[in-house]
Structure formats: structure tokens, C-alpha cells
């Protein structure tokens, strides 16, 4: 099975032989295959003139060539699309003037100022895997029932580079396309607080316009809410805006890198409101998802590295999607430079810097962290005491050693005061069960884990 780019290249090669040079370069320059669904090929053309002409004059020829190359081609359509012309010959002409002249403070051409959304983020290129399927499902539910307060507010949290911003912007963009009269607004908590601070300095009129500005939206998306910590007045303003929007059945979406309860210095009334709707987390993607993400990314870049390289990348880099993309870009750049695909060995040094170093901690160090957390003497853990305040840290230490560091039961037992491996198994099992029922224990374990 050949891919679209190759298919089109081969088709063009055939057509080039049949047509005169001038004809070919006029009509087939800047064309591409946009997609190929069930044998229906959509060819992207630069303008309507070309579309008309290909349709009227070359339709049969193109279709015949396509069929020769790929058996499952059934139909052919044309669509006018924006095709980036290769840059390089266009030199900046304005530069000489701009040294003297100041530019108008026009915003970046490509950010739609009114809603702050970046149209680049859509669901089309959003990869759903088990790591984010819950968040995805929640967002789809919101899209289906806009303004009904299902999952309102939606709170998405997860580590950096896992696609939170992509997801919430995609919701905004999707609503914008399906409900053009809904007012969508995307902002970051930082922008919000700057906006607030500016309005404070400028008297009551500015304040009123600030208050009104955020209350007119049907969908308010606020990114990186964790930066609101310690900004009491901004929080208070957000609280009022939240209430107003919530009462009018307007959807609100937040994202943060932490669960709301762990955001320091966040007012309780905000915390409780964040928890009122739906809180979902985005985990780190597992191997299959990473593979899918890399493949999709390579596809959009029109770059097709050998399979084993993608697989190697997916297996050696954990977690952060942004890092994955960065590395892939690096590899694309390298292979464009060398004009061939890189081998696995060439890629390895590349990865070296980015692959997360496996943490090497001795058992002793881990035990020390746990003991420090519970402020007990380290030595007690190794003794034969069964006092409750010692027992719990010891069991947690065993649990973490087993779960996070994969140390065998017997060696845990041996290192923690020469205990039998069944004791260790019992401890781990016990914590595992308790953690499900005991919220405070879960928080404690999470906090300890954060220290490694």
C-alpha cells in the first residue's frame, strides 16, 4: 500500500509524459492529494480555475493513472485548498522600511482575537488513547449537550505536554464551527489576572467593562488555572464570574497541572466549585498511544521514517507528548539535511538527552524520604517494633518500593530489617486495599511519590 504523497507523485510522473511541459506545469503545480477515503481521492488544487480545468479536461486521464497505480481508487474529486508555496525565493521587501517605521499594533494574523482560540487545535488531529479517553469522552458529552450543565465545569488536569490545551481549544473550535452564534472565549489564567489588574488601575468604568466582558460568553475556557494561586482578588473575581456563568447554564472549562485540591493557596470556595462538575485527569500516554501520536505527527509533516524508528522512539521516550513531537521534528530535520532516512544507531545519540534517566535510588534513600515525611527516626523502620506510628510508614515504604521501583518481595524484606517476604506481600496488599478507601492515605502516598 503506498501513501498519498507517493501515489500522487507517481500519478504526476505518468501525466507528465502525456502532456506538454507547459500544460503540465500550469495545471499540476501545487496540487496534492488531500485525502483518500474508501477509494475516493480528493485532490487539492490552488484555485477554482485549476479545479474547473482538471474536472473538464483531465478528469479521465487522472483517474486512469490513479487506477493504474492503486486498484482501489473509485472516484476523484477536487477541492480548492490553501497550499503553502515553497518559500525561499520570496525575500522580505518591507524590511528596509520597517527599520524606520513602527508597525501598527495589529495582533498576530493567525490568532482570532475575538475568541483567543488557535484554529490549529482541532479534534481531527487529537489522538485518543486510554490515557486521555475519559477527558475526551467528557468533552464529547459537552459538545453534544451544550448549555445543559452536564459536566459543568469541566476540569482537566494532568502534567505538562499531555495535550490539555489541545483538548480544551479543540472543544472551543468545535463549538465555534457547530454553533456559530455561541460566543466562545479562551484565555489563560495569567491573561485573566493581567486583565483584572489593568482594569483595577483605571477606575470604575474599566472595572465594569472587565466584569461584563467575561459574562457574555457561552463558553469560557481558562487554561493553566494553577497560576491563580496566591492571587486572592483575581480568584474572587473569577468566583463571581463563575457563579454568573454557571447560573445561566454557560459552560466553563478549566485546565490545570494539578488536581484543584492540590493547588496551593486557592480559595476553598473555588476548589469546591471546580469539583462540582467533572474532574478528569490526563495520564501519561502508554506505548500504543505514543506510537499512534508519532505516526499521526509524521503524517502531518509528510515524513515517513521506517517503522522501527517510530517504534524505538515510542518505547524510549515516556510521558510528555511535546517532547515526542520535538524529537520527531529533530529527526525530520536531520534526515532532510542528510536527504535520507536515519538509521537506528544515528537516532540513539539523539534520544540520549531526552529519554528520562531512570532514577537510581537506593532503598535506604527511599526509606529515608518516607520516614522524613512522617517525621520518625529512620532506624525504627528497621527494628522489630510493631508500634502503629512506625508500622504505617514501614508498610508504605514497602508498598512504594514494590509498586514504583519494582524490587522483589524477598529483597525488600531483607533490606527492611530481615523480614519474611510474606510480611512484605501482606503489607503491600494492605496498603493497596486501604488506599482505595482511605482518601487521606491516598493523598499521603501521592505526596510522598511526588518527592522522588
Amino acid at each position, binding site marked *: 500500500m503506498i501513501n498519498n504523497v507517493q501515489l500522487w507523485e507517481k500519478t504526476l510522473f505518468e501525466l507528465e509524459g502525456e502532456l506538454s*511541459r*507547459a*500544460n503540465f*506545469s*500550469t495545471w499540476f503545480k501545487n496540487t496534492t492529494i488531500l485525502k483518500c477515503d474508501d477509494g475516493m481521492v480528493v485532490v487539492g488544487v490552488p*484555485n*477554482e*480555475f*485549476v*479545479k*474547473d*480545468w482538471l474536472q*473538464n479536461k483531465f478528469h479521465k486521464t487522472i483517474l486512469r493513472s490513479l487506477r493504474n497505480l492503486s486498484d482501489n481508487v473509485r472516484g476523484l474529486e477536487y477541492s*480548492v*485548498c*490553501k497550499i503553502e508555496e515553497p518559500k525561499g525565493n*520570496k525575500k*522580505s*521587501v*518591507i524590511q528596509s*522600511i*520597517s527599520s*524606520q*517605521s*513602527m*508597525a*501598527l*499594533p*495589529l*495582533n498576530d*494574523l*493567525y490568532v*482570532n*482575537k*475575538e475568541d483567543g482560540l488557535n*484554529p490549529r487545535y482541532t479534534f481531527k488531529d487529537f489522538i485518543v488513547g486510554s490515557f486521555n479517553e475519559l477527558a475526551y469522552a467528557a468533552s464529547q458529552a459537552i459538545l453534544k449537550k451544550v448549555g445543559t450543565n452536564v459536566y459543568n465545569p469541566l476540569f482537566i488536569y494532568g502534567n505538562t505536554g499531555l495535550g490539555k490545551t489541545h483538548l480544551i481549544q479543540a472543544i472551543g473550535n468545535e463549538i465555534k464551527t457547530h454553533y456559530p452564534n455561541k460566543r466562545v472565549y479562551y484565555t489563560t489564567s495569567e491573561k485573566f489576572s493581567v486583565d483584572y489588574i489593568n482594569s483595577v488601575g483605571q477606575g470604575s468604568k474599566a472595572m465594569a467593562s472587565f466584569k461584563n466582558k467575561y459574562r457574555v460568553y457561552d463558553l469560557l475556557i481558562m487554561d493553566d488555572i494553577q497560576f491563580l494561586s496566591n492571587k486572592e482578588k483575581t480568584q474572587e473575581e473569577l468566583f463571581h464570574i463563575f457563579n454568573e456563568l454557571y447560573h445561566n447554564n454557560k459552560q466553563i472549562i478549566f485546565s490545570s497541572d494539578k488536581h484543584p485540591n492540590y493547588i496551593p493557596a486557592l480559595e476553598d470556595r473555588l476548589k469546591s466549585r471546580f469539583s462540582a462538575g467533572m474532574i478528569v485527569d490526563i495520564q501519561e500516554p502508554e506505548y500504543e498511544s505514543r506510537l499512534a501520536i508519532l505516526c499521526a505527527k509524521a503524517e502531518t509533516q509528510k515524513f515517513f521514517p521506517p517503522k522501527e524508528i517510530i517504534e524505538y522512539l515510542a518505547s524510549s521516550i515516556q510521558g510528555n507528548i511535546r517532547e515526542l513531537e520535538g524529537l520527531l521534528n529533530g529527526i525530520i530535520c536531520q534526515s532532510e539535511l542528510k536527504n535520507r532516512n536515519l538509521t537506528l544507531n544515528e537516532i540513539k545519540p539523539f534520544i540520549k538527552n531526552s529519554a528520562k534517566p531512570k532514577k537510581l535510588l537506593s532503598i535506604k534513600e527511599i526509606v529515608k524520604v518516607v520516614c522524613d515525611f512522617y517525621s520518625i527516626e529512620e532506624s525504627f523502620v528497621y527494628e522489630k517494633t510493631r508500634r502503629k506510628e512506625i508500622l504505617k510508614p514501614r508498610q508504605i515504604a514497602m508498598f512504594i518500593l514494590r509498586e514504583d521501583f519494582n524490587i522483589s518481595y524477598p529483597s525488600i524484606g531483607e533490606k527492611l530489617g530481615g523480614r519474611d517476604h510474606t510480611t512484605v506481600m501482606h503489607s503491600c496488599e494492605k496498603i493497596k486495599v486501604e488506599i482505595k478507601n482511605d482518601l487521606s492515605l491516598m493523598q499521603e502516598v501521592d505526596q510522598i511519590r511526588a518527592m522522588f
Partner: protein
Amino acid sequence: MNFFCNRETIQKCIMSAERVTGKNSSLPILNSVLIATNKDSLIIRATNLEVGVEFQIPAEIKKEGSVAVSGSLLSNILSNIPDEETITVSVIDNVCKIITKTKNITVKGLIPDDFPTIPVITNGESFTIQSQNFIQGVKSVLMSAAISDIKPEIASVYIYQKNKQLVFVATDSFRLAEKKIDYIGENISHGVIIPVKNIIEIIKVFEDLKENILFKITKTQISCKSKSAYITSRVVQGIYPDYEQIIPKNNTTEVLILKQDFINTLKLSTIFSGKFNKIQFIINPQQKKCLISTKNSDIGETESTLTVNISGEPIEISLNGKHIFDSLNVIAEDSIVIQFNGSNKPAVIRGVGDNSFIYLTMPLTK
């Protein structure tokens, strides 16, 4: 093919069509115009694959057919037989014979089958505007569009509907012009960004007409149709910058000047304004004086004083003289008002009593 028609009518159309033939195209047929018959009228078509035009003119058709002939050649021939009132054209085997009372001209043509078709918009939104209104709107802002097409969005004129007005905007990111034209008619849901090179062709086609033009727009194409002419152009697929937020609502200094006085002074000043067209303004509200000076270290300098009406704070600012001239050319009023918001914020120029046109220009650095 054989037809008989008025020389002046066909000449005008051929010359208009010749403008949009593909001059640098590798496909030779794009240099030509297509002449075809349609019952009792003649169709003249040309395209450079950016813009396509089609004219329909009355003619006496004796035999149907079509031919493609070099546009420049044909317009050259027609403009050199000014005494002839009518011409007869016959085509056999793509050879075109133009016969007048006293002249016999033979022109080689090309196979008309290879001539590109011109897209016709069937779906999409449509609206109607009187041709002169449209042209006025476009011409008021045209000069502000960016010349280089690095950013295609701003190498264009942006047209959209707002309330009961049609708004025309162009900017090259150093200055901006906005013109509003009264408009009653169908709602236009999304604005359209037309490349500046193409909109020039559009207004050229309708310049001499005074009739309603029917516009049709889709995401990729715009077409304009009058009784006798049809022109279609690619549109820029993109988002026009949100310019409204940069139009200042207040001002710190306001200057009222008679346009002609201002033009006269500027004309003198530009002699010394150098390649950046830099003109310095020192505005003094107390003395009601505006000092305009330019300086060129190679050739000399000027300094002139204008007595004007000023309110607000004193200000010193350098502006681009060419930008100011461009705006004065489209302002019809006798007196203009210039508003400032400090020496590094855009200056606003408009005609006194005219709210339909607004012009912003950024100051130059000192």
C-alpha cells in the same frame, strides 16, 4: 466563425480582457483572449488563472464558432484602426481575418479548445451593489494594502458587512484605511479578502459602468456580474487581522487643517523628506501653530509654519509623508482633522464631518 460588429465596442472589451491575460505564463494560450459566439452576441474571455473575465457584446453573427488570439496583438490592431466604425471577422482553421472598408488583416490564432474555462459560482452568498459605490469603497482604501504578498491576508482588500454598511479595509501594517459605504440588501455572513492585484482588475472592468453588480462569494472565489461583464477572482483563505481594536477611541491632541493649505506645505516639504518620506510635525496648541519640517543631510532642509486649530496637548511627531498624501487624495472634504495619541501611537486622519472614512498611520522613529 463569421461576425460583424462595432469596432469601438469590441476594442474596449479586448483591451480590458488583455489586461488579465497571463503575461508570464508558460502556457502560451493564456496570453490570448478567446472570442466565441453565442446566438446574437459575442463572448470575449481572458484569464491568468488568478482572475478571469468574460464580456458579452452585441454582434451580428453570421456563422458560429470560436478562436483564441493573442490579446496584445489584437488590442494593438484594433487601436490602430480608429477610423473604422465596424469590422467583419471571419475565422477559418484558426486563422482570423479582420476585414474593414479599407483594410485586410490576417492574424494567426490558437485552438480554442485548450482555452481554460472560467469558474462560475453556483452556490454561496450573493449581494448587489451599485458599481460606482463599490468602486468608491475600494479606491478609498486600495493604496493602503501591502504590496508584497508575503502575508497574503494584508496584500488584499477586506470587505465585510456591518449593520447597514459595507466596510472596506486595507492595511500594510504601517497604515490602515477603512471606508464605509451605505448598503441595503442581503446579509453577508462572512467577510471576503480579495488580493489587491485582482481587485484592481475588478474595478477596472466596472469603472465606466453605472449599473448594479451582482456579487457571489464562496470561501475560495468571488464573482462579479453586470449586464455585459463577468469577472471572477480567487479570494484569500484566511483571517483578516482584527484591526478594529487598534483604532483609537480618544485622542490627546486634535488638529484641524484646511486640506489645500496642508497639501501645498507638504509638497514643499517632501522635496527634502528623503527615502523614508519622514516629515516632522511640532504642534503647539498655545500659539495655534503647526511647524512642519524636513531635513535631508545631502540636499538641505525646510521649515514651514501653518496656522491651524488645535486642541489638547503639544506634541512632536514624525510621520510618513507619502502615507499622508495617500489619505489626502481620497478625502473629498475641504478641511481635515488629524488626531494624535502621543508620539509613538498611530495618528488618525479623516475629513471634517465625514465619518465614513478613517485613516491610521504609524509615526516614524525619531
